[in-house]
């Protein structure tokens, strides 16, 4: 069965006909060729496929493309605006919060959503927020520091 969907991805409207079973992550990667969103597991444990669905982080390997009709999806490619990096992107480089780069896009999306909701998160709140995103390279400390750094740059409590 096919479904007609209208979805806005990183501000661009898309119309598409998708199979019932098509996963959102495959729609993003294969149909839209936005390959920044990665795949790391099939059980929604690792979080490397995290995107924002109407502002909320979701694991796009466990969302069907057919479910996002009428929604707004944001991926790592949409973080930069007007040629300017998002503060969390800058902070990841500044604090060496990435190594192999594979978990990075999902981690950035989770962290950017956290900063939208909480402009001044504590270390524990950051750790809790990213606990659905696995990273094998960094040991997480520099990611925590990057979020704190970005929070400072954005300007503390909203």
């Amino acid at each position, binding site marked *: 069965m096919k479904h007609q969907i209208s979805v806005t991805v990183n501000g661009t409207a898309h119309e598409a006909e998708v199979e019932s079973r098509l996963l959102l992550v495959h729609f993003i990667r294969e149909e839209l060729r936005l390959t920044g969103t*990665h795949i790391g597991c099939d059980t929604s444990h690792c979080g490397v496929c995290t995107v924002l669905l109407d502002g909320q982080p979701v694991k796009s390997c466990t969302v069907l493309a057919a479910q996002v009709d009428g929604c707004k999806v944001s991926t790592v490619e949409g973080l930069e605006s007007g040629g300017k990096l998002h503060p969390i992107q800058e902070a990841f480089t500044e604090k060496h919060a990435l190594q*192999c780069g594979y978990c990075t896009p999902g981690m950035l999306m989770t962290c950017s959503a956290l900063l939208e909701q909480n402009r001044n998160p504590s270390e524990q709140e950051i750790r809790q927020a990213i606990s659905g995103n696995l*990273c*094998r390279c960094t040991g997480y*400390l520099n990611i925590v520091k990057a979020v704190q750094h970005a929070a400072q740059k954005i300007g503390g409590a909203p």
Partner: protein
Amino acid sequence: MNAPRTDAKICGMGHSMKRKEDPRFIRGKGNYVDDIKLPGMLYMDIVRSPYAHARIKKIDTSKALKIPGVLAVIDGPTLEKYKLHWMPTISADTQMVLPTDEVMYQAQEVCAVIATERYIAADGADAVEVDYEPLPVMVDPLKSIAPGAPVLRKDKKDKKDNLAFHWEAGDRADTEKALQASEVVAEQYVYVPRIHVASMETCGCVADFNPAEGKLTVYMTTQAPHAVRTVFALVAGHVGLSEERIRIVSPDIGGGFGGKVPVYPGYVIAVAASVVIGKPVKWIEDRMENLQADSFARDYHMKVRLGAKKDGTLTALSIKTIADHGYTNASANPMKYPAGLFSICTGSYDLKHAFCEVDAVYTHKPPGGVAYRCSFRVTEAVHAIERVVDVLAQKLKMDPAELRMKNFIAPERFPYKSVLGWEYDSGNYPAALKKAMEIVGYESLRKEQQEKRKRGELMGIGICSFTEIVGAGPSKDFDILGIKMFDSAEIRVHPTGKALARFGTKSQGQGHETTYAQIVAEELGIPASDVQVEEGDTDTAPYGLGTYASRSTPTSGAAASLAARKIRNKAKAIAAHLLECSEADLDWVPGKFFIKGVPDKSKTIQECAFAAYTNMPQGMEPGLEATHYYDPPNLTFPFGSYICVVDLDRGTGEVKVRRFVAVDDCGNIINPMIVDGQIHGGLAQGVGPALYEEISYDEDGNISGGSFLDYYVPTALECPKWETDKTITPSPHHPFGAKGVGESATVGAPPAIANAVVDALSHLGVTHVDIPITPEKVWQLLKAKGVAE
């Protein structure tokens, strides 16, 4: 301290330069294998065995082939026609690509479906019907090695037992005698379980055979692209794939940790499919395939005996190991060292008598024995010695720090020849432990522990003072399937003074694009930002053995340094020509030659580069390039002391790592930020195996830990706020005094954590707990001791 010699513009060694890799990764513009989409590309999905041991009676592909879009099913008999159904492992054992008769482990590849789309390939794999005859399963290596056990490897002619190999080092009789004469002997059975690297990116490839050119390009997740090219040529030469027509490209790699060293059947089947069909074929394994079928690490059953005098002076060490290798020995170990560098097991201590032996055994489990972020079995060796030193300390009622201090190889004894044959290049073990004790506040923690014990609270302090052994070659001792373990660098300085540097290694997150550029900057004074680093494409990079076992800085890093020095020597001749003086009149500061005593009379490296193409001295070969193949004279021996503080929950058995202090020494440092980052990551990959990660099997060979549902990779919540520091003891034989570092923390962290947990329970009479120390394991112990809440 190696304070930077260069300014921030040149950004040579010692600068925490921001990574050159980052701009693409933070924008989602990395290029990983699954991001590659070629015109006309097909997709492959693999049918895997539900049984650990079974005979394949029939593979019925008729339903699969009826699905629109399914083009072919490749099985063992298909490959047998081309004599490609078996392949060598990198330990020179043999491994099925696809079975023609029996499957030997659960999740083994049975056949592969090729289709026009990913989802259709998966549909096809679901529709293949395989008729199996289940056969008896052998999962226990101790039973497999026992006399009279059924022989597993019936494919091996005349094989009468299940021994993959026996290996030993040291003097058995002498060590036995020394143990007999010891006043105290600490004896401990230590199991280091089967674990999986679980890099965030799984394995996969795009095999692209171009029939018009007869050329095969394989984009694949490999840590060793050149070695893979040679192996492909050796294995498939008879079907027309010769080495000059094979190009292996290792694009961005989402973590390797040793798991991307072997050649897995999936790669070979995809290549065969592309050659037969004449179109590109993509194969990407999912997480369950990754955890269940790719090479595992560890799985060492060790009986450790450590002798000592009553005053704590160590006398002798003996380790007898049964190693479970699964159905084939697919370890990624050098040929001469089938048990890797396990004989580093005397560790940081001055032992005069030692013996170790390893019996490697076949079982009905996936093949392997790769490293998990460690240099060839060093983690197992370090776990054995560091655990048993604590067992001894407990027996002697000595403080474990004091016992270590008493027995460390003294700083003045380096280079130190160990009784098992290694020449440790440099070290200062007491300094590292002293520093770690100061940072953690050892004495006050011991007091706190005493007070907490009175209140019934369980808190432990664990120490590990490890010695690593990394950076293979030297080539006289180290090779993979005959290929010597050197490594390479090629540097080209362009007329405008910018440079391109290519290497035989391959970064998987280590930051080579940054650190190698810094080495070139250090040697030539060309800003690191002007040095473009490339790796991973066998058509352009110089031959090398790849990145694993913490070998990149010790080998290719050294090669970069020496190639750059060749360039500097040539540039010096050019500078002398330009300044109309003799070379002997010239001095060098990074980036510039000048006439001794006349700093104004100078030529920059960029001016020399331009002259190398526009105004070279008469008779000089034009250009400014150099290549160096570096064969290290010895391995490097990084070390460190780690102290871990844990709190145990008496209600749940949960181990909370409260603090973790890591003092590392990897000699001179290229980029402190990157070294620190690698240690952080390594520590997390120490917490995982110490507390959570394990792959185990039931008696039928069914896996437990085969998905992220039950293979617990630590999250940000399980990892503490790492406290890292360093001492610097340069390697005397490395061109710029560096040692490898990427794996130190994975090696050193698990014993520190295990020692801390045992320390928390030692007053209850607990002397050992095998890793992973799960909440259940701790709770059972607490219950047995009557202190569970």
